[in-house]
């Protein structure tokens, strides 16, 4: 039953994902991509659990590697997206 529920969530999220992005101005294609890439770093949550709760050494190491990679993905992804969007914003309000 539990699994059926998870599949249910997955299906709804898939439809939502398709609906969220309709017409994106091409200016925003890169930030949208790098911003959503940062979100895919959500696997960091799994990495934390694997690192902290694994009872085998191998499991802990695997979690640890996952954690480093996911953290780079999350932190780097959000920061670089923000840097880009800051650039865009400056332009929008600049002298015409």
């Amino acid at each position, binding site marked *: 039953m539990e699994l059926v529920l*998870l599949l249910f969530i*997955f299906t709804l*999220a*898939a439809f939502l*994902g*398709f609906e*969220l992005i309709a*017409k*994106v*101005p*091409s*200016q*925003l*294609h*890169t*930030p*949208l*991509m790098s*911003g*959503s*890439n*940062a*979100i*895919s*770093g*959500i*696997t960091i*949550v*799994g990495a*934390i*659990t*694997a*690192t902290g709760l694994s009872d085998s050494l191998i*499991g802990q190491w*695997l*979690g*640890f*590697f*996952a*954690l*480093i990679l*996911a953290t*780079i*993905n999350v*932190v*780097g*992804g*959000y*920061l670089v997206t*923000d*840097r*880009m*969007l*800051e*650039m*865009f914003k400056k*332009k929008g309000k*600049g*002298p*015409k």
Partner: protein
Amino acid sequence: MNAILLNIAYIVAAVLFIFGIKMLGSADTARRGNLISALGMLLAVVVTLLNSGMDFRWIWIGLGLGTVIGVVWARVVKMTGMPELVALFNGFGGLASVFVAWAEFQKYFSEGGIGGIDNATFIAVIIAAATWIGCLTFSGSLVAWAKLSGKISGRPTILPKQRLIAIVLVLLSIASVVAFGMFPNGFLAYGLFLCVLVAAIGLGLFAVLPIGGGDMPVVISLLNSLSGLAASAAGFAIQNNVLIVAGCLVGCSGLILTLIMCKAMNRNLANVLFSGFGAVSSSEETEVEGEMKAVSVSDAYYVLEAAQSVVIVPGYGMAVAQAQHAVKELGNLLEENGAEVFYAIHPVAGRMPGHMNVLLAEADVPYEQLVEMDSINPRMPTVDVAIVIGANDVVNPAASDDPSSPIYGMPIIRANEARTVYALKRGQGAGFSGLTNKLYFLEKTRMLYGDAKETVAALVSEFKK
């Protein structure tokens, strides 16, 4: 922390991601949207850390290391290096999901195998799937990164027996995932697991190597989508709903972006991925009449000085030469000279979606001057001069009038309709795609050979004389 509270916090995080993605799709709200989604991530991480009974030593080290590397990387990267960075981050996300799935498998393995638990087959298959998607994303992204950063040639690389090896790898992938689902216990399972891993890594290499640089916007956004799906599959493996939802959102919105890119090239996804498009032999092409006529910078200056309206069409060549600042300076001088200046941006110009917008924004080009393909094309016949800077396929008229051309049907910026065309190009050879560009052979076209940055700088100094 209480499991119910934990899950409620995850729901809130998921909602923040949804708003974040939504807001990223519109110019006014994009920056706030990114912040909101970052808050969601922070929330998800903090509540996970509050989970009791964890060994925190390695967690702090991992978080610390990752944060330092991430911050430094995001700060030092140049805007011209953005496509490589995005490709690499995609790969990291994919690989992280692989390790999460692997750690979960390791846990079951040391407890005597997956076979003993409820829904064993499903869990086994989803662990294998997360590993497969993640590895594919990782190795594909690595190839994309190497191509974009010039570590390997950006041209399509066709290896011997390319197709055969790819088919074998696909079959091996399917077989090992299925076998892993059937025999999820003991060392046999471990062997099968490693088979999945190796097959996916190989497939990622073989899938991306034959794809040419011009198709990279599609590849990058597809890899982005896959990194989300990998996270989602890892979420099923560890039965964590925030991973499932967030990963799936990224997977699907990434797919939409991929389809937008495909549409901009008038090709479908399968065609981009499997055709080895750039390897089309040029012998099939119809002979182009006329010749490419070079012109000196000072001659070009006289025409530009008299021009009332100028459209600049940037492409990957501008990024390679890092010419965006010089281009902006030229644009300013043209404006001061009384000309109307626009920058025409093709959706797939460059090597990632929105590539040109990022570069021109870095150079402080006002947003109002950037125009999309559909709004500039009707105005093209009234434009005095079109300056094509390192763009090739996106201005190739063969796309609209030569049914035998491999890019026939792709919407282009119709620079060929402007009264005069100046094309900045490094040399006489064909572009990345290997296609001859008819635009260069038109009577009204003049070629300015050389490094784009130097050529533009030379034009700028002519104006300043």
